């Protein structure tokens, strides 16, 4: 187990190095740079002023030097300055991380607490009216774009309650804050919960056809015990994998949801930073996301062993 963890750590380091090179190079391959964009708001491009600005921002240096500067700064905890706001990158990113983290966790919780139980119910009541209804719900979850769903939710709240659940910088209480996050989390988590539900259902159906389930039934185990003790535990393995992957994909849904609900999270900020070619923000933020995704997958791998005793990490 220990040697497995060490190997995984080394692999993670290599992955992150590869990611850093990829992020850095790809970003610079995108046409247009921050200087072009800065001049856009002035309505013209002056070549001499542009060259001066490129020099000021260090964009005139060889790309390898720029990369080396970034990585050494990153190692020392210096993320540099945003080209747009001219503020330290960390002060721009840090306050936004908890906002998106809360939203992502709530969306994930939403997808699990709805997706898994409904998937199980759908499986154990296969081909009944309940199953049909749940399958329609899950299909709509997969088909409705989250920006549309978000807008519809906003309109319904305004229409019915005269209240607009957009971001409030200073919520009066914990419960108001929770409510403020719950609505967008539900909008973005609806798709994930539909995915989890469908996967749980198919996984459960597959497991319930296994011999050991028949054996458990023949031994006289109750239906509840068979479904939830024997079947669900084994059916959860692919579900946990997909939840791990979804956690990474959630950022895509959050970009749209943060825009619609005007939530100043890190996802929307990333898109704005890409639009502005704000390299220091984008490369550090994408790197941070890469670290989170790599660690999440690592934890998911470790969870496999806990869920399925047959999986061993020894040589």
């Amino acid at each position: 187990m220990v040697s497995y963890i060490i190997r995984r750590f080394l692999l993670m380091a290599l992955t992150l190095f590869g990611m850093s090179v990829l992020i850095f190079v790809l970003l610079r391959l995108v046409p247009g740079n921050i200087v072009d964009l800065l001049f856009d708001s002035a309505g013209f491009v002056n070549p001499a002023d542009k060259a001066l600005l490129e020099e000021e921002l260090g964009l005139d240096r060889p790309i390898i030097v720029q990369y080396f500067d970034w990585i050494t700064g990153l190692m020392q905890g210096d993320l540099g300055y945003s080209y747009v706001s001219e503020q330290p990158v960390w002060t721009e990113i840090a306050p936004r991380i908890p906002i998106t983290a809360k939203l992502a966790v709530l969306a994930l919780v939403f997808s699990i607490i709805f997706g898994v139980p409904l998937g199980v119910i759908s499986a154990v009541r296969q081909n009944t009216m309940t199953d049909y209804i749940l399958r329609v719900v899950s299909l709509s979850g997969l088909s409705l774009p989250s920006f549309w769903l978000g807008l519809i939710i906003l309109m319904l709240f305004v229409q019915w309650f005269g209240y607009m659940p957009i971001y409030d910088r200073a919520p009066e209480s914990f419960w108001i804050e929770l409510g403020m996050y719950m609505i967008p989390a539900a909008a973005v988590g609806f798709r994930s919960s539909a995915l989890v539900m469908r996967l749980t259902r198919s996984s459960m159906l597959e497991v319930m056809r296994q011999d050991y389930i028949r054996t458990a039934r023949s031994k006289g185990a109750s239906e509840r015990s068979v479904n939830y003790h024997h079947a669900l535990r084994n059916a959860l393995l692919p579900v946990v994998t997909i939840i791990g992957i979804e956690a990474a994909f959630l950022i895509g849904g959050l970009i749209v949801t943060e825009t619609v609900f005007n939530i100043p999270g890190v996802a929307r900020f990333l898109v704005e930073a890409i639009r502005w070619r704000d390299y220091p923000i984008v490369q550090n933020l994408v790197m941070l996301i890469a670290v989170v995704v790599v660690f999440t997958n690592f934890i998911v791998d470790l969870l496999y062993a806990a869920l399925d005793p047959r999986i061993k990490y020894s040589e």
Partner: protein
Amino acid sequence: MRIRLRALAAVGAMLPLIMGADAALAQKSGGILKVYHRDNPPSASIHEEATNSTVMPFMNVYNNLVIFDQTVARQSMDTIIPDLGESWSWNDDKTELTFKLREGVTWHDGEPFTAEDVKCTWDLILGKKEGARLRKNPRRIWYHNLEEVTTNGDHEATFVLKRPQPSFIALLASGYSPVYPCHVSPADMRTKPVGTGPFKFVEFKQNEYIKLEKNEDYWDEGKPYLDGIEFTIISSRSTRVLGFINGEFDLTYSTDITIPLLKDVNNQAPDAVCSLVPTNVSRNLIVNSDAPPFDDPNIRKAMMLTIDRQAFIDILSEGKSDIGGVMLPPPEGLWGMPPEMLETVPGYGKDIEKNREEGRKLMEEAGYGPDKRLPVKVSTRNIEIYRDPAVILIDHLKHIYIDGELEVVETPLWHAKVARKDYMVGMNLTGVGVDDPDVVFYENFACDSERNYTGYCNKELEELFDKQSAETDMEARKKLVWEIDKKLQEDGARPIIWHERAATCHQPWVKDYTVAENSSYNGFRWEHVWLDK
């Protein structure tokens, strides 16, 4: 008895006036004006930007020397009032404009305001200030006629011009012309602006909000009435308009409400006060006349003849925008050609089919026809307000044997591409800072202007630019302006398609808010605005 009744009736008739006068005097102090903003301003430094994304929130931080009266919708030379310049005077030959400056004014950081700050500001624009420069200087061309700024003591500054320019003062009255402090660097002005204005800068959080607070030491005693202004940046138009309808915001972003959206606002928030005004932003074509095939003036003329301007207006703004030349058309525009003159310009005649027939003949003379069509790329920014008219243009070009192909260009590449002249035909937007020919002509059509995208250069016409600029008789100037405008259209310098109209809305409790109707860059100083709630 009859006399008594008459007296009573007279008092009764005057009652609303008396009460109105009371109401006018009864401005309430306090409250935060909540405004939504459409996008993240590129910086807080007005002198470095050419967008009202920056002017709208930050104009309140600064003062100008003079300013357009913010309670009058139609801005003109007659509506210019003192700001930091308490009074002003011209010398006899109109080449020196001297301001007597307000005394006892301090910057928000406590430093005193002096004439040196005025000199510093325009030295910075002219590129004469040692040790400091603007990263971008979009209005350098406005001051091409400014020789220098001199000072006489702490409270007098003189603008010395190379030649007479009576409307120079109108440039100084624009929202684009604040006075900057000498002791604050241009870099700091981009992130933490310091002004003398009615509101102090508190915080600008990227993509989130901009907060301003009341300047308690403002020189205009008793003002501002508001305790502060908060701009919430909301990039999703649906969300922000819904927010306004639901009363979350007191005021919309300037001219953010399009004509189709205005119907929704009127239906869902019937108490909202909306003003539908010209934005003084025109949609126009930029044509690369340096490269074939558009180096042929006949092909350029044919293209102008095929444009059905009313069709653009009907499709995109439900018939509620205006046709004009480069100057904003009347009645809101002060300098636009009269309709009867406009109709004499090629392509402006009402018989579109006749125009197109003429266009087809010109194309045939150039060697094109139904069997030999001209393929053209129509480039534009990948933004809806650019893309939509470009698509309509492609349809109109078909009538004169031109097959247009839409090329959408990402915003960061647009100006660089235009500057390289790497386009054939482009759909473009031009916003006008001040409804004055000196701004429009020099900025967009002077040979050495950086914002003259097509590189149109007509030295003879430029002499006329100078002539109209120096003209003191306004009627004579107007005739010269019309002549120039007509010539610009005939030359296809930057064919104007239409002038847009859009609305700004505020809640009924926002008082004394006036929407400027001939520019989108000068009407955002709100020391007189108050909230009745």
